[in-house]
């Protein structure tokens, strides 16, 4: 029991913090219940996917600044394809968009491996490239989401306080992550992030693993884009504030910048914490702009703390 606690102490602490925040929410808003949970889960969905995407590459010892832009590309592609399409084709469109995400991520990864330019520079350049691509696909917000995609995240299942969006998130992440985590590829991703030399000496193919990690990042980003389109009902070519939010959630979630540490669970709990803080501030009828400032400050503080911790770990 104590071992379990030691290993997952950070995540357990985060979960406790989340529970406290829920209590606090109940205090300031006694009516907070199923519908509140539902809207929280729906608002969190794209952030959660962005965070998962970022978490995978950070675990592999990299970073991907183009996450938000890839989400935009996926979102507008889905919206354009689904505009006026039948259910059958819209399912096909979803599959296509997921494939597109894998390809975009793999391109990022391959460019890093082939050009040997640092990941942060490559993905900065690709941030602009994907942003431009989204604008070329859809010049202004438009398109439409298939009705089933819109409904898939609305309401609850089984229990009234279990939001559908939350279940969708868990299923999507679990389908990709659970089989991967213990597989050779999953272990290799951790290995190259933790100690590249040791990984190389243990026989891990560094380049291929890195490309795979970025491809996974692209896949999660595509899910995020779909979630975005499903939430708004249209495609939005301008990337949202997901880059900074995902970096902050990843750091807060116990994934050390520099790689090797952490998993998906921590960042996902962290992203709920960050969203709930925002929701509470709104409930307290704080000016939404001040909410943005507070949120930004929390994120920057988290990243700064993460920077100090990473510097400590290095020395």
């Amino acid at each position, binding site marked *: 029991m104590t*071992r379990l606690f030691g*290993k997952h102490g950070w995540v357990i602490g985060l979960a406790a913090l989340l529970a406290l925040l829920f209590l606090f929410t109940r205090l300031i808003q006694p009516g907070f219940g199923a519908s509140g949970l539902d809207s929280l889960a729906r608002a969190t969905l794209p952030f959660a996917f962005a965070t998962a995407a970022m978490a995978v590459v950070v675990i592999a010892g990299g970073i991907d600044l183009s996450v938000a832009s890839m989400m935009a590309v996926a979102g507008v592609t889905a919206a354009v394809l689904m505009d006026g399409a039948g259910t059958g084709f819209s399912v096909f469109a979803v599959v296509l968009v997921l494939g597109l995400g894998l390809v975009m991520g793999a391109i990022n990864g391959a460019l890093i491996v082939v050009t040997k330019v640092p990941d942060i520079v490559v993905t900065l350049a690709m941030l602009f490239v994907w942003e431009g691509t989204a604008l070329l696909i859809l010049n202004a917000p438009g398109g439409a989401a298939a009705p089933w995609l819109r409904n898939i995240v609305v309401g609850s299942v089984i229990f009234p306080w279990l939001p559908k969006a939350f279940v969708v998130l868990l299923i999507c992440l679990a389908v990709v992550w659970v089989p991967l985590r*213990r597989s*050779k590829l999953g*272990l*290799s991703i*951790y*290995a190259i*992030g*933790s*100690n590249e*030399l*040791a*990984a*190389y*000496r*243990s*026989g*891990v*193919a560094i380049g291929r693993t890195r490309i795979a990690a970025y491809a996974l990042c692209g896949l999660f980003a595509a899910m995020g884009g779909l979630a975005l389109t499903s939430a708004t009902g249209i495609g939005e070519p301008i990337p949202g504030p997901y880059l900074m939010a995902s970096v902050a959630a990843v750091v807060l979630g116990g994934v050390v910048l520099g790689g*090797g*540490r952490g998993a998906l669970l921590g960042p996902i709990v962290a992203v709920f914490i960050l969203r709930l803080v925002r929701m509470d501030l709104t409930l307290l009828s704080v000016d939404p702009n001040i909410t943005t400032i507070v949120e930004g400050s929390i994120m920057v503080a988290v990243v700064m703390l993460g920077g100090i911790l990473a510097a400590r770990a290095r020395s």
Partner: protein
Amino acid sequence: MTSDTPLLHASGVSKRFGAVVALKDASLTIKKGEIVALMGANGAGKSTFVKVLTGALKRDNGTVKIHGADQHIGSPGAARRAGLVPVYQEPSLIPDLDVADNLALGNTPVEPFLHWVEALGISGLRLDDMIGNLPLATLRILDLARALASEPEVLLLDEMTAALPTDLVEKVLAVVRGQADKGQAVIYISHRFTEIAEICDRATVLRDGETVGDLAIADGVEDKVVELMLGAALGAGPAVAEASARPTGVPRLDVHQLRAGTRLADVSLQLFPGEVLGVVALEGQGQDELFDAIAGMIRPDGGTMAVNGKEVRFHHPADAIAQGLTFVPGDRAEGLLMQRSVHENIALPMLARMRNWGAIKMRREASKVRDAVARMQIDIRAQGEVQRLSGGNQQKVTIGRWIATGVETLLLFDPTRGIDVRTKRQIYGLVRELADQGAAVLYYTSELAEVPAACDRAVVIFQGRVVDVIPADRADEQTLMRAAYGLTNAHEVPA
């Protein structure tokens, strides 16, 4: 396969890095059931040879045969598949994965692994222990157990017993010998003669990238090995400098029981003005940490330092510089602004302080730089970018930087590594000149022949402790080499 066919036979292996020849003609033969020690002084090409054998580097020429068949080993994975499994000095386990995951990553069977862990004297290991939380000694044992569990044809152990406590060393030696008796072939790299005498059958000696001897282990083999490692250089060293009488008075630098990291255990030394004090040590005996701590690059874990009798504590190299301690690191790439000019490199320390951030007095700076360039005799034909200079000239720039600001105490870490003979002579001369002008110089060198030429006395460090202090007139290579290998008994160790 007849029992005479060697299991592994490498011959004529060569490797160059640009202009530097790391391996000229290295060879090694090992049969079933043999333990062969691979030996060589610093820079003899041992680690390059190991990297070639294990696929971390591609050889330029030569053959590596396993079971008599040519092998092209292109990566560590390929080496493993060919049956050659190394255990490196730094454990190649992933710190952020637990034991079970590390085994899965390399497809290592769990049962035999646990058997070996137990046999090697580690108890209470759990498969869900995180590697990063385990002590270094345990990790090295796990790495060895993992290698044994994969049932390699040839096991390569690089300084396997370094950082291990005595009881574990005994277990490891017993297991390795036992495996060899059952037919396992082992390449054993070590600085420790006692261990080599205990378990090895033969010793293959490298010098200057060449295999120069292959000796059966017998009584008195140490002297022969030392002789082979030193080669023709023996007795033909440069003239001994006029060793000044042992200085007295207040030491410029007084280091007392300094301790840092895993390797620097307990070093005390005194450096006097007007003296060049040599530091002699095999690779990785704590000398890096010693210099880093004195230069303010790292904070020591224990012990004290005093400059001119006043105790000091450094938080940043700038603190050390303020006390007159100036550092020339071993790796030139670490000390130089490779893309910048000779001028900018030499002038750098003059601008470091905030009060010098303003307009540069160009004429004054230029004259100081010119003086340093002249004094160091730097060839400035390619001065636009330091990376275009030869190694010797680069080294002169790193030293010249401190000449320009005025030297009090100079910390030189292996300043002559990989540079030509003429520049080496110039550096000896310069060091002597500086000392004669009252500077104190701490001089680590990996080339033993330099000690009598450049130093007044030498402290010998082995396993993080001072094992001997030898005055220059007695510091012939053989004495130094024996001392560096911890074989001291000729002299009394001074207090």
